[in-house]
């Protein structure tokens, strides 16, 4: 079966430091793939390469077989790849519902430019998505007044509004309190399953990875050190030493 996303022989370096050194990876429909690794190992670069924010020195990225290596982030977003950032990227001075409606309306055509942004159908869809991630009660709040966990969820909901086939998440639980972490992940997983969205996520929290990922890539110095089901990967001594810090 053809993977949704396939990266082949990616090479990229920043100031001589290799973030990807001939790496190839793929993600298949329905997977929830986690990338773990030490700080500075190049994990976020993978997401940037897949969404057009960074272009590789060599190698290619394919979405459903189509080469997207040189496409702009906007073009890749339009092909069905959405992104949620480590620091939530929101229109901070706008209401939660407005962030959602902007995302829902972003890809509409030129001829609807003069129509109202706020339509009944768009509002209903926005509210449904907010309900899906547990933010229904926050819809009229200004987004920069939300607690960090809710801002993360809103960032994810904004990405879901793009109706992606593939969602890339950069540390979805970072900056979130221990109490909020698993409710956030449950809300996220529920939304992904309901909408049948494949996901690739970078994460530091091994409990989160162990519980939710069905495959793990261990990134180290621009290479994949290990790959497999979390149960197997977390038994690997090299992984435990380099990522978890267990001797």
């Amino acid at each position, binding site marked *: 079966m053809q993977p949704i996303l396939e990266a082949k022989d990616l090479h990229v370096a920043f100031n001589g430091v290799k973030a990807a050194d001939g790496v190839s990876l793929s993600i298949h429909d329905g997977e929830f793939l986690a990338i773990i690794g030490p700080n500075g190992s190049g994990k976020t670069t993978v997401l940037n390469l897949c969404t057009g924010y960074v272009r590789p020195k060599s190698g290619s990225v394919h979405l459903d077989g189509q080469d997207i290596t040189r496409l702009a982030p906007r073009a890749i*977003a339009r092909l069905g790849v959405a*992104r949620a950032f480590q620091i939530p990227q929101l229109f901070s001075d706008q209401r939660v519902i407005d962030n959602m409606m902007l995302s829902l*309306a*972003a890809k509409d055509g030129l001829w609807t430019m003069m129509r109202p*942004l*706020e339509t009944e159908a768009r509002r209903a869809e926005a509210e449904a998505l907010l309900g899906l991630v547990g933010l229904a009660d926050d819809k009229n709040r200004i987004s920069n007044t939300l607690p960090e966990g809710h801002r993360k969820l809103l960032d994810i909901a904004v990405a879901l509004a793009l109706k992606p086939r593939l969602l890339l998440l950069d540390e979805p639980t970072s900056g979130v309190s221990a109490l909020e972490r698993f409710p956030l992940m449950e809300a996220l997983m529920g939304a992904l399953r309901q909408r049948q969205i494949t996901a690739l996520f970078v994460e530091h929290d091994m409990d989160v990875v162990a519980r939710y990922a069905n495959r793990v890539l261990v990134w180290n110095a621009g290479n994949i050190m290990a790959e497999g089901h979390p149960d197997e990967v977390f038994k690997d001594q090299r992984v435990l030493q380099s990522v978890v810090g267990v001797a």
Partner: protein
Amino acid sequence: MSNTVIPLLLDSLASAALIFFAAVGLTLVFSVLRVLNVAHGSLYSIGAYVAASICLFIASRQLSPYLSFVALLFSAVFVAAILGPLIERTLIRWTYGKSEAVQILITFGLFLMLEDLQRMVFGVQSLYEDAPVRLLGTSQIGGVVYLNYQIFLIGMAVLVVIGLRMLIRHTRLGRLITAVVADREMAQSIGIDTNRIFILAFSLGVFLAALGGALAMPTSGVAPGLGADTMVLAFAVAAIGGLGQIEGAAVAALIVGLARVLAIYFVPSLDAVAPYAAMLVVLLIRPYGLFGAVTARRI
């Protein structure tokens, strides 16, 4: 007293309306694209030339003079549809993110080209067709005979302010423009076609400039040099209101209009200086303009 006050107020409002048209497009383009378009005044004068040419054609063919009102609006749409996308894609897009000095040099080059282009296409003679003014006639207000066309101009300015406000706050285009202004990268990441937004916003700015020139033409005609005069005045108004502030441009236009008319009524020799004296006073008190802020970026 009322014999002076009412005409003075009406003259101020009419003057403010024309000044507002000259400045609002400049401030809109700056707010969205962060580009100081020095060629803005040329777009105003091209709007006036196109309007004058069409109105003169209507008169020469003895068509219904009411068509001249359609011609004023059509001129602005025509100029915006042709020059807006053309200038944005060929020149303005290269100035995004560049320093103000580069932007000013490039748009000043564009200004020089457009000024020469106008001389080539329309010649160096003045053009004037006042059919819209004649059609609307006059009224007596406070014992003073007043051109109804000036009241029409005030109404048009109010309509543009309300229209722009509605467009920005309620339409999909306006909300996408606001999103791009707030965070260009975020807008791109959710799939907003920022290039398309830039073209539309710049063309809207060109439309407003050309509409200003077209509406002013029946009262003052159009002649070489109008672009430069308008550009300087538009910058003064935009600076008073705060660059990028549409409401600021409206209030600044009122201030400049009042200053200008007060000068004409009481010290006519200071007519040309009055707008810049008003700018000086405002900027001494508020260096970022009435509605401007050091970091805020609102439209």
